């Protein structure tokens, strides 16, 4: 596993044969979702290289937490693709199974960001949203 930090909040990638698993951990569900989005961006480029210059608002609602994670990651993918942007800052609020977030980022600069791959969509594979050992874990496989 590739890990950005051992202590919460943190993100990591887990192996998948063809694609890439993204996992976020946090002290709250919202923080775990924000970290999962950071892991998503880290599949494309180093999140530390993405400067938060512009903000974008996102709202999602789903029947359950797992599907909310999938919807959230897909919303981030959609905004990145449509706006030709990358994001590094995720301010997430979750009430029940409704999510609202502000994404902070900047226009994609291929030379500087060296984007490795464009995510196609978040899948239901290895999908998990759960509280484990006092931390929230949010993960799934993203098709790249």
């Amino acid at each position, binding site marked *: 596993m590739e890990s950005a930090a051992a202590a919460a909040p943190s993100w990591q990638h887990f192996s998948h044969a063809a694609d890439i698993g993204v996992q976020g951990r946090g002290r709250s569900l919202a923080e775990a979702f924000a970290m999962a989005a950071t892991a998503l961006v880290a599949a494309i480029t180093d999140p530390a290289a993405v400067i938060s210059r512009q903000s974008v608002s996102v709202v999602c609602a789903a029947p359950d937490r797992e599907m909310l994670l999938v919807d959230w990651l897909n919303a981030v993918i*959609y905004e990145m693709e449509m706006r030709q942007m990358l994001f590094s800052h995720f301010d997430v609020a979750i009430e029940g199974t409704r999510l609202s977030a502000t994404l902070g980022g900047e226009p994609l600069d291929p030379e500087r960001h*060296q984007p490795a791959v464009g995510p196609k969509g978040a*899948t*239901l594979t290895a999908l998990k949203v759960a509280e484990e050992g006092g931390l929230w874990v949010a993960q799934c496989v993203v098709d790249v």
Partner: protein
Amino acid sequence: MDLSPFERVGDTVWRIPPVGAMRVPAVLYATEGLMRDMDDKVFEQITNVASLPGIVKAAYAMPDAHWGYGFPIGGVAAFDPDEEGVISAGGVGFDISCGVRLLLTGLTRAALEPLPVKERLADALFAGIPAGVGSQSAIRLSAKEMDAMLTGGAAWAVARSWGEPADLARIEEGGRMGGADPAAVSSRAKERQRGQMGTLGSGNHYLEVQEVVELFDDSLGRAFGLAVGDIVVSIHCGSRGLGHQIGTEFLRAMALEAPAHGIRLPDRELACAPLASPLGQRYLAAMRSAMNCAMANRQILTHFLRQVFRDILPEARIDLLYDVSHNTCKEERHDVDGKSRRLFVHRKGATRAFSPGHPDLPEAFRAVGQPVLIGGSMGTFSYILAGTFGSEVKSFSSACHGAGRAMSRSQAAKRWRGQDVVRGLAARGILVRSASFRGVAEEAPKAYKEVGAVVDATSAAGLARKVARLVPVVCVKG
């Protein structure tokens, strides 16, 4: 993978008898070595597929099978709509109609032997083919043209001068998939596609100039217009943002609606809907629209490619050998136990491989079988195979599609530097052009399994016959 649950039926045939919820057996085609290297998830996923309603005969896995989402990649499964059969968005994949198009050039290796010519070609292809994350072409479709593209496919592109009429006979379905309905495609999916017509995408997508280095069957080689030393071009890409968005939306909808149809999924990732349901029909119409998008996209890329060759090597004559998709669900007739049945065949990371004589084959291939195009990685071989008589019975006329990854993207990016990979390949005469060195590292040749073993197993299992082996000369990475 643990082989103890399998019955070994032959050197390259392995069977899992139906147990528990499985409605049919699962059949895997691979050598023992490939089987042992497979992820355990392949067993779990192929047995799950075998439990879906309306599945016919068996759930199949090709020699390149690996862990996918819901269906294994390299999975083939056919469903009968009259027996409560289902259609699955995960059984097609996000990159709907991702496929390979192979073009003949009329050139031989001598044309590219002067390094300055090869470098000029590599640079011009990189400049002329939009590739990589965020790349866009100058093409912008109005809402009306978007809908025309979604119903017209490659035929739409040719009608707008992106290609030659003769190209269409060398594309599955004549370049236009019937049954598409742009009204089934969301506005978000169309928006995502707006700037992406004529783009290669990223990840494992590529455009490669390749040299034919070996012919395994002279007669088939002649039939396909191939000789050792010939230069050909392969394009590997799919339906871009439109297909990805359709996959995203229908995977979600199918997962949520399955209980209402009485479908009990062993895992939500197997999301599917009855073919006869409104959701199943809507997905079919949307997926077929995405197929047209993918075929139109590869057609436009071919036009860009022809422009580049016209500038750099005007003596080239770019003719299409074939264009075949490997992420699809297609309505086909198949003989099952002596009876012709109308089935919906999912091929997720598997290539259709029609046998000689199949009525849906273009005239040029009627006597010899369909070209089956297998991509390798940028430093290794690609293969051209041909459909065989046996594959109809063995796998609903399906074969493998590629090598499959040997390691994750993260592992590859840690192990290699993109600059070193590019330099190493250049020393071997393979020029790589990419917007991202990290992307090159993640696609490093050794990050993939040996495609030759997959092709040999495919041939030994009688799913397709080997025709030619190709090596890359120039690679534009997505």
